[in-house]
């Protein structure tokens, strides 16, 4: 290179290679800085290293302490999967409001406890993907929130468990629009989280081998819907055949005997009675076809031993035809509709239903009465009538031809007959000293928990099984009452004042200041 050319080149130390080296070191330093920034950001989000402070007036972003404690003590991360869909008119706007409030609540909960709660909101407008997921979860209804922790699940129905609807009055002369009667997502979530996190998965065994209703099939008289609902609610459902295994299995949390067509047999009754008196939990739905009240080895005999006597015949009550005439002598008299006045207001199984003014349907139901005291002494336990028929109900006995005439005859029991009874039996203390209580639910109508009527009675059935395994937690959380602040935009000139100030005065003041500054600079 000539001297003149060399003198025109960059000075020594800043040649192209030097610049490349400096550039590379700068890039390296920047990359290291970026890595440090990523690390710092990651560290700042670690549990225990970050703080979250709610500075709102109403503490809208702070969970109730009861729910917060449950979340804190969760053994892992729970997941809430939402499957929400708008209701048809005229409930569309109401359902959207509930959905928005539910999403907001779950956002607050998951933001406060990101390591403990994850929310997945499935868009039901994406039919293919949402349907596939619902199929995986064996869900057949929308407007549910599925809470899961590991393999355990609890299903919350938006309309029922989380929110309650007041249908209003559709009569045009006295029209009252539908409204939201209550909205308690925190309570519902707290109970669901307890179900999926506390204790082991309860195992329900359905007795088979005597013509009982089958939980594995679906149909009007089957128990397929009940089985699916129990599985969604965190139960394990299986079958027990006494012929194969005479004693009730040790891992059985609840034994369900639903409408056996044949006698269970003395041996089976002895085994079940022994198991119950040792602290077992029994759900028994009386036979709708096996008419005999007495007889050894029948379900009625088994309940008799536990102080619950099954009356012969079926409970009937008059019903009002569309013409307004009161009807008897019709088989529909046996399709009992029990309103809230027929439900026990304090027992956990029916308390929520009573508060929500719910109705149960108990077709072809038997009635119960308390047995003689030698069967159940007062100190041994207590029986509670969960569901009672109306004042004008009676037990219709079959005639000589074996059929019921559905008309009241003298001598037939009448009045507020118990149709479902819950019993708690004191059990002798074990060697370890712990005292358990046996629990029994006797239901007069097996159809009430069958697929044909399950939609109406689902909550009642699930409450019964949850009560039997003592999962009837009551988490009392006061509902939030925060009302957003509103400016009176109708009755006063407030909106006009705001408009003039923010749209004209403030920008105008800004412009005036700028012009003033400009003029002062010009005049100097």
């Amino acid at each position: 290179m000539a001297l003149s050319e060399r003198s025109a080149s960059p000075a020594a130390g800043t040649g192209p290679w030097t610049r490349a080296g400096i550039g590379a070191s700068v890039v390296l330093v920047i990359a290291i800085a970026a890595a440090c920034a990523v690390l710092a950001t990651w560290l700042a989000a670690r549990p225990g290293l970050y703080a979250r402070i709610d500075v709102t007036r109403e503490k809208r972003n702070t969970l109730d302490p009861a729910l917060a404690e449950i979340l804190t003590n969760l053994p892992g991360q729970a997941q809430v999967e939402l499957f929400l869909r708008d209701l048809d008119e005229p409930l569309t706007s109401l359902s959207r409001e509930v959905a928005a409030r539910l999403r907001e609540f779950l956002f607050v909960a998951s933001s406060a406890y990101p390591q403990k709660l994850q929310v997945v909101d499935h868009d039901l407008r994406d039919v293919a993907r949402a349907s596939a997921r619902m199929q995986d979860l064996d869900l057949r209804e929308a407007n549910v929130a599925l809470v899961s922790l590991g393999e355990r699940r609890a299903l919350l129905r938006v309309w029922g468990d989380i929110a309650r609807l007041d249908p209003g009055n559709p009569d045009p002369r006295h029209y009252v629009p539908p409204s939201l009667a209550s909205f308690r997502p925190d309570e519902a979530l707290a109970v669901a989280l307890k179900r999926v996190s506390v204790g082991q998965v309860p195992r329900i065994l359905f007795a088979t081998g005597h013509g009982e209703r089958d939980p594995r099939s679906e149909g009007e008289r089957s128990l397929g819907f009940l089985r699916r609902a129990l599985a969604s609610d965190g139960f394990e459902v299986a079958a027990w055949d006494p012929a194969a295994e005479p004693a009730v299995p040790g891992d059985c949390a609840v034994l369900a005997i639903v409408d056996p067509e044949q006698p269970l047999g003395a041996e089976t009754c002895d085994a079940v009675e022994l198991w119950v008196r040792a602290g077992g939990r029994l759900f028994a739905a009386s036979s709708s076809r096996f008419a005999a009240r007495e007889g050894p080895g029948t379900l009625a005999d088994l309940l008799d031993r536990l102080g619950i006597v099954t009356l012969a015949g079926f409970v009937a009550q008059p019903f009002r035809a569309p013409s307004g005439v009161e009807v008897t002598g019709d088989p529909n008299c046996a399709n009992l509709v029990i309103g809230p006045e027929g439900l026990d207001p304090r027992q956990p199984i029916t308390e929520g239903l009573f508060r929500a003014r719910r109705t149960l349907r108990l077709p072809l139901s038997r009635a119960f009465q308390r047995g003689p005291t030698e069967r159940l002494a007062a100190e041994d336990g207590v029986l509670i009538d969960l569901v009672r028929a109306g004042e004008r109900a009676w037990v219709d006995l079959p005639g000589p031809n074996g059929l019921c005439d559905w008309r009241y005859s003298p001598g037939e029991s009448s009045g507020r007959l118990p149709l479902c009874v819950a019993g708690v039996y004191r059990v002798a203390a074990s060697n370890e000293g712990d005292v358990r209580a046996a629990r029994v639910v006797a239901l007069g109508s097996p159809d009430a928990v069958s697929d044909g009527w399950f939609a109406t009675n689902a909550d009642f059935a699930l409450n019964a099984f949850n009560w039997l395994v003592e999962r009837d937690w009551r988490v009392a959380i006061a509902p939030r009452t925060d009302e957003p602040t509103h400016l009176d935009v109708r009755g006063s000139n407030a909106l006009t004042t705001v408009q003039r100030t923010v749209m004209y005065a403030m920008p105008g003041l800004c412009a005036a200041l700028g012009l003033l500054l400009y003029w002062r600079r010009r005049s100097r």
Partner: protein
Amino acid sequence: MQRTWTICRRELAGLFLGPLAWVLLCLTLFLNGFYFVLYLGLSQGDVDGSLSLALGGSWLYWGVLILVPPLLTMRMISEEARSGSLEFLLTAPVGDLAVVLGKLLAATLFMGILWTSIALYGVLLAALGAAPDWGQLATALLGSVLISAFFCAIGLAASAGTQTPLLAAFLAFVASIAVLTLPIVPDFMGLSRDGWLASTLARCDVIAQFQGAFLRGVLDSAHIVFLLVWTGFFLFLATRLLETRRWR
């Protein structure tokens, strides 16, 4: 620190002695005021909802954040480099970091004045008998200032990287849009939302962080650290780019 403050005052004076700052202020105030009144009327006077809209819940807010910081910062370094005054500044007994920090403070203070004027809506509403949730308003204001500092830092880094103010503004604008749209990249790529890329980018979702915490009245240390750390990173980047000028 004194030098940083001196540079900050100088930049602020330069901003407010020129027409750009006043035009931006007037336009932003007018547009925000318009939408604020519109929503206030539509929502039957929902005070907190309307203020939330004005301070982070609307497209206008994010539009201001994308457009205004690049316009503010585009000339701070690149124009000075082009005019030759940057050499005087760099040869003065002021560190590069102090220079960049001073300019960042000035831009952030300007944005703070902008957001505070919107927060004054709350004072007006309180005078009319509908006081807002002051805690929520304060966190929204704090979040707005922090996010503005973040975008101003991006603008300064772009300004330090070029001698053309318009190019600096364009680069800052593109970078701001990239930051805001990062979390939706996995959706465009058809990746699962449960994958590591999606979950990593979800942590960088500035809009979600702001609307999920600051706008709701929650002070979340993780979000504050995120904004401060990445503002610091772009500040560092701007300082390094400024240093490289000595070698060109």
